[in-house]
């Protein structure tokens, strides 16, 4: 198993930090911090109240302990809850963007400039919590689409924010969600009007830059009747010895006949091979299929973070609504991931599909945790789940916890699970046909992930394959 161990000893390629000056709050959390954040953002009274209420709720809650991960307790008072680029930019074009920032994007391989624009992607970049630039806004505005930072939405479209915020994920939902509600910094807002098909993929890159800042962004996407949007989220963070906390919220609302496709490629710093540093990624993502025939699909490729705690879920309220979850989760070295989904069937004839592919290497632990819940009124609900684990070497672990709660006899639930090991004989076979070790390994891994890559938007699929190759590679360069 020498080959596999060599692969398992790979290193993080995005480990650098840029020198953009930040305006950072000293560590610690109390009501004043919450007020500071709100004031800094010039928020209306109702939002401050919302935050304060969340803060009080959070203080009464305890961190969840049921997760199959193991880590030093987070000291919530050692974290700084606000960091923003000092010169708060209000920019209309890329020319006005801090060149350092552009360099940052280039290092990330985000073609924010011409290439990406030409390929029709509008990018809303979030660095350390404040959304810096939004492209293509005008073209989107022509068809009535709103795509902006969350803070801007609070100012420009308070009625929409107020109407939907917290309706999918209530403050009390869980410990990290409550924390986010109290201290969220920025994020993205998308509104697709009735009958509009968003003419391009919307894309946001999140990135954690400053030392010891937790990132608490939140995203809200609303798709009105008969509309469609595909949203891409990419994440990465520089290499640091300290652990950093990331506790985001993503809420999706799909009305009648609407469809939201949400794709994530997550590459937060996973820590080094001895488990030092890395992001704690505790994220709450949930979509509400509010209307009949609505559809929400989550696709995620997770290669980063020291610890991942993440269950993008669908609440299938509308009759005939559809929820999908496609996931590739890679863990290497000492990474730990506990991820999966919840499909809550409420309406009639609701359908859900879960395809989860876990790849474990090194000494990592990779857990799938999924709930399929069928409520009494959900006649003819259907679910299909497929959870496959691939092990590289024999020091890593894969675990599958499928939970089923079915309260309607007409439900049809199917669950399949497999665990396999990357075989030396598979590698040998491919190498005997002339493929290098790297290519042989990537071929096997890509084959394993095929069903998920097939549903990623094309340019993202290429990026995802590259990321997978990097996170399983034995040496940099």
């Amino acid at each position: 198993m020498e080959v596999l161990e060599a692969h398992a000893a790979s290193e993080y390629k995005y480990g650098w930090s840029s020198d953009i000056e930040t305006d950072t709050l000293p560590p610690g959390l109390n009501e004043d911090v919450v007020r500071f954040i709100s004031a800094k953002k010039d928020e209306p009274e109702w939002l401050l109240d919302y935050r304060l209420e969340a803060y009080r709720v959070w203080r009464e809650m305890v961190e969840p302990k049921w997760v199959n991960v193991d880590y030093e307790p987070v000291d919530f008072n050692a974290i700084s809850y606000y960091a923003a680029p000092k010169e708060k930019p209000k920019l209309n074009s890329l020319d006005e963007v801090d060149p350092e920032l552009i360099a940052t994007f280039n290092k990330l391989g985000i073609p924010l400039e011409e290439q990406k624009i030409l390929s029709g992607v509008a990018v809303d970049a979030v660095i350390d919590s404040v959304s810096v630039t939004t492209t293509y806004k005008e073209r989107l505005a022509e068809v009535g689409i709103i795509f902006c930072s969350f803070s801007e939405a609070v100012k420009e479209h308070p009625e929409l924010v107020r109407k939907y915020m917290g309706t999918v994920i209530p403050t009390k939902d869980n410990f990290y969600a409550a924390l986010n509600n109290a201290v969220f910094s920025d994020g993205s807002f998308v509104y697709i009007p009735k009958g509009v098909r968003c003419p391009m993929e919307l894309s946001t890159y999140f990135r954690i830059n400053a030392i010891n800042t937790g990132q608490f962004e939140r995203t809200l996407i609303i798709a009105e009747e008969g509309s469609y949007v595909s949203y891409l989220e990419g994440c990465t963070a520089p290499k640091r010895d300290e652990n950093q906390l990331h506790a985001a919220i993503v809420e999706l609302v799909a009305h009648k006949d609407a469809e939201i496709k949400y794709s994530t490629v997550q590459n937060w710093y996973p820590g080094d091979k001895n488990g030092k540093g890395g992001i704690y990624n505790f994220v709450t993502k949930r979509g509400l299929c509010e209307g009949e025939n609505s559809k929400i699909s989550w696709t995620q490729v997770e290669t980063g973070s020291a610890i991942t705690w993440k269950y993008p879920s669908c609440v299938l309220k509308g009759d005939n609504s559809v929820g999908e979850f496609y996931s590739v989760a890679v863990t290497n070295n000492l990474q730990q991931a506990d991820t999966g989904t919840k499909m809550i069937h409420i309406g009639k004839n609701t359908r859900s599909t879960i395809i989860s592919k876990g790849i474990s290497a090194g000494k990592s632990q990779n857990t799938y945790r999924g709930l399929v819940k069928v409520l009494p009124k959900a006649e003819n609900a259907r679910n299909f789940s497929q959870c496959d684990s691939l092990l590289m070497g024999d020091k890593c672990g894969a675990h599958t916890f499928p939970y089923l709660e079915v309260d309607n006899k007409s439900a049809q639930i199917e669950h399949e699970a497999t665990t396999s090991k990357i075989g030396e004989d598979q590698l040998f076979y491919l190498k005997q046909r002339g493929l290098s070790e790297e290519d042989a390994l990537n071929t096997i891994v890509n084959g394993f992930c095929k069903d998920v890559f097939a549903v990623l938007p094309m340019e993202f699929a290429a990026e995802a394959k590259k990321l997978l190759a990097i996170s399983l590679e034995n040496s940099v360069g």
Partner: protein
Amino acid sequence: MLSIKNLHSQVEETPILKGINLDIKPGEVHAIMGPNGSGKSTLASVLAGREEYEVTDGSVDFLGEDLLELDVDERAQNGLFLAFQYPIEIPGVTNATFLRSSINAIRKANGLDELNGAQALKLIREKMAAVEMDPSFLKRSLNEGFSGGEKKRNEMLQMMLLEPKLAILDETDSGLDIDALQVVAKAVNSMRDANRSFLVVTHYQRLLDHIVPDFVHVLYQGRIVRSGDKSLALELEKRGYDWIKEEVDAQTA
């Protein structure tokens, strides 16, 4: 082409090959026969570079290079091909994708331009017809759910596409019906030429009715105990392996 001298190899401390000597010149077809467990597959694996077989003594020269110093993929790129006795399944990787990657890996290593999708497909379809494989196999995952015979045809397809200098066939004939056997023979015979050699491992003589070897060797207990021309295979067919076993056992007793 290939020169094996006093080759010893073991798996987990158990010696399996105990001094193999074999010379294969360009254009020659050698057959290796022998009872089950005599070390035929081990020899093939050692030549291809499988790590779990440790070489404890001896040397192998392939086209003027020390074969044992090369990685598995370098050996393949230098023109050594092994048709597996038990081809491996790789889920999710289509046969077409795999074949193209393989063709291009070998071409690239030999300084040739890589083939684009259309060029590769044209070539693959052409050779598929030669081994009587339906084009539907292009879209299927590599060897996954293929029958024994289909897997062996797929091995022959790869051999024809990669045009190796030395092809080792490890019991490609076992478990095949007569039609499939003829496909294998046709593939090999169509590729025979003055610069290409074959090492055909087989348990039965019947394949050698169709692929006529220049030399036949009998492997028993990790050694080549007898060599001859094609008539040796016919003799084995008639008399079985017992007489050879007895002779060898008498000598070593």
